[in-house]
């Protein structure tokens, strides 16, 4: 009995609620005749394509800057990398590697500058981060129009310049990771390459947290005064954390886009920080403490919920726009719920 109690306590009330909600959705989905294997396949894909974006929260939280609400900064760098790769005619695995290779240095520089900025506003990083994200997205709305990309698959066909709002990746490196070593059992498709790649990124971040720099960074986040007295530069640690978070966001969006099949520009990156933040919080992280396991569990829960809620809503509310409204309510509802759990509820 007390065993059950401790297990329940370890799971935490918030996650318990989400798990129960997920189960009831699964039952509802089965009830309205949805194919379980399709839903499971979709959940797997969404897990893989979002994992790296959620992972970007780890260095930010660990270095003490809280959840990275400025994630769009990194996302924009990733998009830039992806576009460059397409422009240069990159396809398949080579295209993906090229996209990441271009995105990393750009995001490193952007992350460094963003980190410098966060060091000036200690204590309100999350709010400032949100604003920085919004501003960068707005600035890039102009940027996308002016950048000298020429590839006809990307620019507006009539004007011949200015990037389109969505850019199909069918002819470049769409789905390369999803299809890599993919296999089927029953009706279930397993996107092996995608999942392996995302988990491999988790492993890299885990190894980083156990390195000298990683340990120093975690100490700065946990107790800055201790860190300073121990000869660790807190500001430097925070910049490293922000840089890594931004670089992970850049890689994350490339992975996301190849799975999704499209690059989304202009307003699309605006609210992209919220889902990863919510996933991390649902997984058990707080704004001051996070583990890789939180990221993995949270992404599974959050993405499965969204995947399964959508078809259920569709069946319950067949009129086109109502189901869209329901989907928005559900996803934003979960995000809101997750945000209320930040820091509270657990230890």
């Amino acid at each position, binding site marked *: 009995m007390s065993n059950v109690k401790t297990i329940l*306590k370890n799971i935490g009330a918030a996650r318990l609620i989400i798990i129960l909600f997920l189960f009831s959705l699964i039952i509802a989905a089965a009830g309205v005749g949805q194919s379980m294997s399709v839903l499971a396949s979709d959940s797997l894909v969404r897990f893989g394509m979002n994992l790296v974006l959620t992972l970007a929260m780890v260095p930010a939280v660990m270095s003490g800057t809280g959840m990275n609400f400025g994630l769009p900064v990194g996302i924009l760098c990733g998009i830039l990398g992806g576009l460059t790769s397409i422009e240069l005619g990159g396809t398949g695995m080579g295209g993906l590697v090229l996209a990441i290779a271009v995105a990393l240095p750009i995001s490193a520089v952007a992350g460094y500058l963003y980190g410098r900025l966060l060091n000036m506003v200690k204590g309100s990083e999350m709010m400032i981060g949100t604003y920085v994200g919004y501003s960068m997205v707005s600035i890039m709305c102009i940027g996308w129009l002016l950048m000298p990309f020429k590839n006809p698959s990307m620019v507006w066909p009539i004007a011949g310049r200015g990037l389109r709002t969505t850019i199909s990746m069918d002819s470049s490196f769409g789905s390369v990771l999803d299809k890599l070593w993919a296999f089927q059992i029953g009706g279930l498709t397993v996107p092996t390459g995608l999942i392996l790649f995302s988990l491999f990124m988790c492993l890299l971040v885990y190894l980083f947290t156990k*390195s*000298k720099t990683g340990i120093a960074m*975690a*100490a700065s986040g*946990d107790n800055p*005064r201790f860190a*300073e007295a121990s*000869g660790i530069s807190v500001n430097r640690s925070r910049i490293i954390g922000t840089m890594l978070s931004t670089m992970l966001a850049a890689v994350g969006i490339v992975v996301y886009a190849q799975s999704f099949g499209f690059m989304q520009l202009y307003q699309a990156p605006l609210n992209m920080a919220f889902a990863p933040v919510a996933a991390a919080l649902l997984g058990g992280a707080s704004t001051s403490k996070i583990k890789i396991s939180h990221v993995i569990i949270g992404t599974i829960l959050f993405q499965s919920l969204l995947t399964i809620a959508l078809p259920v809503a569709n069946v319950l509310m067949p009129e086109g726009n109502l189901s869209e409204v329901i989907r928005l309510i559900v996803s934003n509802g979960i995000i809101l719920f997750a945000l209320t759990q930040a820091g509270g509820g657990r230890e």
Partner: protein
Amino acid sequence: MPDIKPVISIKNVEKSYYGNKVLKGVSLDVMPGEIHALCGENGAGKSTLMNILFGMPVIHMTGGFEGIIEMDGQEVHILNPRQAMEHGIGMVHQEFMLIPGFTIAENIKLNREPLRPNLLGRLFGEKLMSLDTLTMKSDARTALNRLGLDVDENLPVDGLPVGYMQFVEIAREIDKKNIRLLVFDEPTAVLTESEAEKLLDAMKRLAAGGVGILFITHRLDEVMQAADKITILRDGTQIKTLNKADTTAKEIATLMVGREVEMRQKERAEQEEAPEGGREIAMSIRNLRVDMPGERVLGIDLDLYKGEILGLGGLAGQGKIGVANGIMGTYPTSGEIIVGGQELKLNSPKSSIAAGIAFVSEDRRGVGLVPDTSIELNMTIPAMVNQGRFLRHIGPLSQIARQEIRENAEKYIQELDIRCTGPRQAVRRLSGGNQQKVCIARALVLAPDILLISEPTRGIDIGAKSLVLDTVDRLNREQGLTVLMTSSELAELRLICDRIAIVTDGKVIDILPPDAPDADFGLAMSGVPVGTQSGGAAD
């Protein structure tokens, strides 16, 4: 006989943290006007019991407790500190709970501010009434006067010396009108003897007014001086409740640890006095100024000889604490420090560590620990970052060397007798005294040439205290470790130091031998140097 009921009666209280039983059936009564001392080693469960009485959230977040608490014969259920206050319980915590930006008066009256009706208040009720600042200040003044503390109540708490903060905490509690029971968790740990004296007097006066007092301390002389009854805990078990009249400090000590303890005065090997100029200087400090709020250092010259233990004593707020912080660079510092012939870069903890200096801070919560991290990492982080130890290198990359870290932690856990569930336990979950030992271990892991150790025995029990002092002394004798030890407790400085510098008004007033008469120390602390100086660079 009139039937006087106990203010509080604790019956068979049990408490577990994460399956680990830390209180195993404790019962005690406190009568009105009684001072009841609670004694026990570090981790015996004293703070836990007090936290239960005060309804602290840690208790309820970890599954509550078992047993009954009665006040005036009625069972009470105290679920949060607010209810505890409503029942007339006040608590002075082991770690301070003051709001730094507020003034002394505001901290004392926090949440109980006297109100003055205004228009909005009349319309919308209490929440919108104005604060009656004048009453606030005079109430605060009265409470401070009762404690005999002469400090301006308009000062912010921020810069106050720790000793004063302690008094402010106490003033806050005694200001409560309905107060029936006061709980003091190691209130004297940060105080010098004379300040502690003052506090004990205040406690006796409160008790005489009919308040029941529960009092935790590791200083047995205080127990003998102030307590009426004594309850002894060991590993969560109640060993005995005694009347002060029927016992001795030695018996209490023995009951606490479960074995005979020698309360011996350690004899020092007779130092063959090297001629003054002939001793090698490990660190030479010139015109040191440290801008540490509440403990300002205003120009100190001091030479630390190689292989000696130099004590720094003095009253709270006079600057003794600032010296080590200045050397370490944790507060803005100016002046000149020469270590091993090289000028030390000031305001840079990294350079200080590189110069072979390690620091045990007096502020273990703020500076000493990474609370959510394991014991083993707490001990090794500075060594990893500054000395590249406890790491395995793979090309330019590094990984922590788990095995080595584990072995190191196990060694110190054993050597310093740290009571924990294992090297991976988060230090937040350790009792106060055991956290202190982790801080000491961390400094020793750096294998320093010079150890700066401030308030090393703050909050640790008598057994652990001699363990820590012995460890410092042993490293000093066996490995020639040079030590600068800062302490509020003169007695402990006299126990192991070769020389004791007394800091008053931010300056070294005098340097005395440990066997100098009490009167000389007293004079030095009040700012009067004794004519016969025993050497050193004080001027």
